[in-house]
């Protein structure tokens, strides 16, 4: 997504907006494992004293309310953590459940409170499920990279968390992204712990590595397609005038 959707920091409020965008860049779409800022979901940010207003937009009117709610709540939470911020209002625009989600997330209510008839629990399980998928996706990309760089399956499964120096050149960003998800799943950060494990920390045998990667790959293919679709839909949705002109 082009950066043109970002509100450019201007004047005195500029640095505050920059800080807020940096915070929002750490809020992920759980389904796509990509930041709200990079996806172009942050439409506008404004600051008035200690009060921040975030306007979010999504690719369609029907984007899943559960994911929308997670993102809106997470965005509020991250911005509330910034020093000097006392209130955060989140406005989700152009959505089937825009008013419920905006009001609920801004008031810090749970999804179950806002949609009592439709939610049978909270969103933690959903979040955890997609964290596991993101873990698999990032892991697969990292492991394929190091296999392509010449490591054998035996060497891959023998790697330890502290083995940075044994990672082939260029693999550091993928390793970092993978370690971040490992930490979120609560897997061991001990330098002596096995680096390449399944999502519960279980060991993977060298002989099973390729079959394991193939299973994980299915998730990545879904995610790639879904991301392509969502980005494309967002772009066509908010570039109406351009398309209409062509028509």
């Amino acid at each position, binding site marked *: 997504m082009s950066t043109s959707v970002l509100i450019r920091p201007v004047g005195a409020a500029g640095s505050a907006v920059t800080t807020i965008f940096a915070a929002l860049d750490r809020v992920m779409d759980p389904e796509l494992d990509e930041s709200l800022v990079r996806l172009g979901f942050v439409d506008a940010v404004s600051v008035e004293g200690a009060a921040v207003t975030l306007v979010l937009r999504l690719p369609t009117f029907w984007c899943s309310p559960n994911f929308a709610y997670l993102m809106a709540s997470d965005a509020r939470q991250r911005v509330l953590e910034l020093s000097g911020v006392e209130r955060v209002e989140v406005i989700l625009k152009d959505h089937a459940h825009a008013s419920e989600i905006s009001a609920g997330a801004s008031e810090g209510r749970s999804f179950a409170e806002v949609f009592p008839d439709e939610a049978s629990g909270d969103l933690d399980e959903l979040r955890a499920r997609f964290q596991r998928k993101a873990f698999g996706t990032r892991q697969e990309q990292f492991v394929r990279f190091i296999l392509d760089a010449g490591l054998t399956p035996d060497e891959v499964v023998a790697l330890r968390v502290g083995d940075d120096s044994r990672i082939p050149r260029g693999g550091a960003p993928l390793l970092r992204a993978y370690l971040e998800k490992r930490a979120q799943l609560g897997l061991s950060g001990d330098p002596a712990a096995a680096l390449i494990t399944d999502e519960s920390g279980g060991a993977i045998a060298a002989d099973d590595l390729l079959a394991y990667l193939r299973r994980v790959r299915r998730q990545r*293919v879904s995610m790639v397609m879904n991301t392509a679709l969502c980005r494309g839909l967002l772009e066509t949705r908010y570039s109406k005038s351009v398309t209409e002109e062509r028509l």
Partner: protein
Amino acid sequence: MYRTTDGEEIFVVDGHLHFWDASPGNQKNEYGTGWIDCFYGYHKVFTPPEYLWSLEQYQRYSESTMLRDLFVDGYVDVGIFQPTYLKEFYVNGFNTTEQDAVLKEKYPDRFILNGAFDPRDGQQGLDYLREQRERYAIQGVKLYTAEWKGDSRGYKLTDPMAYRYLEECQRLGIRNIHVHKGPTIWPLNKDGFDVADVDQVATDFQALNFIVEHCGLPRLEDFCYIATQERNVYGGLAVIMPFIRNRPRAFAEMMAELLYWVGEDKLTFGSDYAIWHPRWIIEDFINFDLPEDLKQEYGIDLTLAGKRKILGENVARLYGLDIQAHRRKLAAQPLPEFDPGQAYAVA
């Protein structure tokens, strides 16, 4: 009928068609507006410029537009209607069996008409199912488990009433159950894309075929898993096919997955017309080759024979359509002349 440069003829069955009415007068509320706007986004995101429609044309298109797009320009020999009712959003429904039946009745050999049911309609709904079977001899139904009804935001195939309906389908000889498992309006905290309910009913209803439309996208991995477990589960490629033009690598990776896990005998082509025009999708698909790295990695290929199955043979088998006999029948029924000036009115 698609003719390859070698003169080989490929019989095309488009497994996923709509003849909808989303005109402003039929929109009941903002959801109806939001629905067609969302569909229009899907249209715009993948459609090549020369096939783009205006929103107005997209909201409602004529019979002759549809006939020409499919059978004159689009290589399609036979098309299958998959109704989507949405009566909460549209006054007369979005795309009902009755709306589609208008074209089926005029061109009986060109279309296969599917019906629909909703287990939340109780006993009355069972009567309606029987009525559709009696009136239109339907062999299949399209189910949209995410459909809103009153306060309900959807149902599962494993709900007790859904079982009664599936039993009735089995009894009536309605063999093909097309289930929308793809981009949807429903999921709240439950994952509405979840295909687990298909897994269970496919086991319990061995005489029925379950065609998972859109292959569970964006949960392809879950769909692949159940499709390998169940003999009677198929994948409908609507929504997946149009990636072929501007996301070819993503399309290739997905086809590799589907061919590896599900296999070329259980995948069926669908344009999802009028979301997309079948012509460019079919042309691209015929010319598509799986990249070498994916062939190597998965140990699979997509040959012309495989494409032939996906474009028509597989779904023809599900509907008991004898391709050779049907070709002869269609050859004897020329379509009406269409005014070429109407073609792609806005392109």
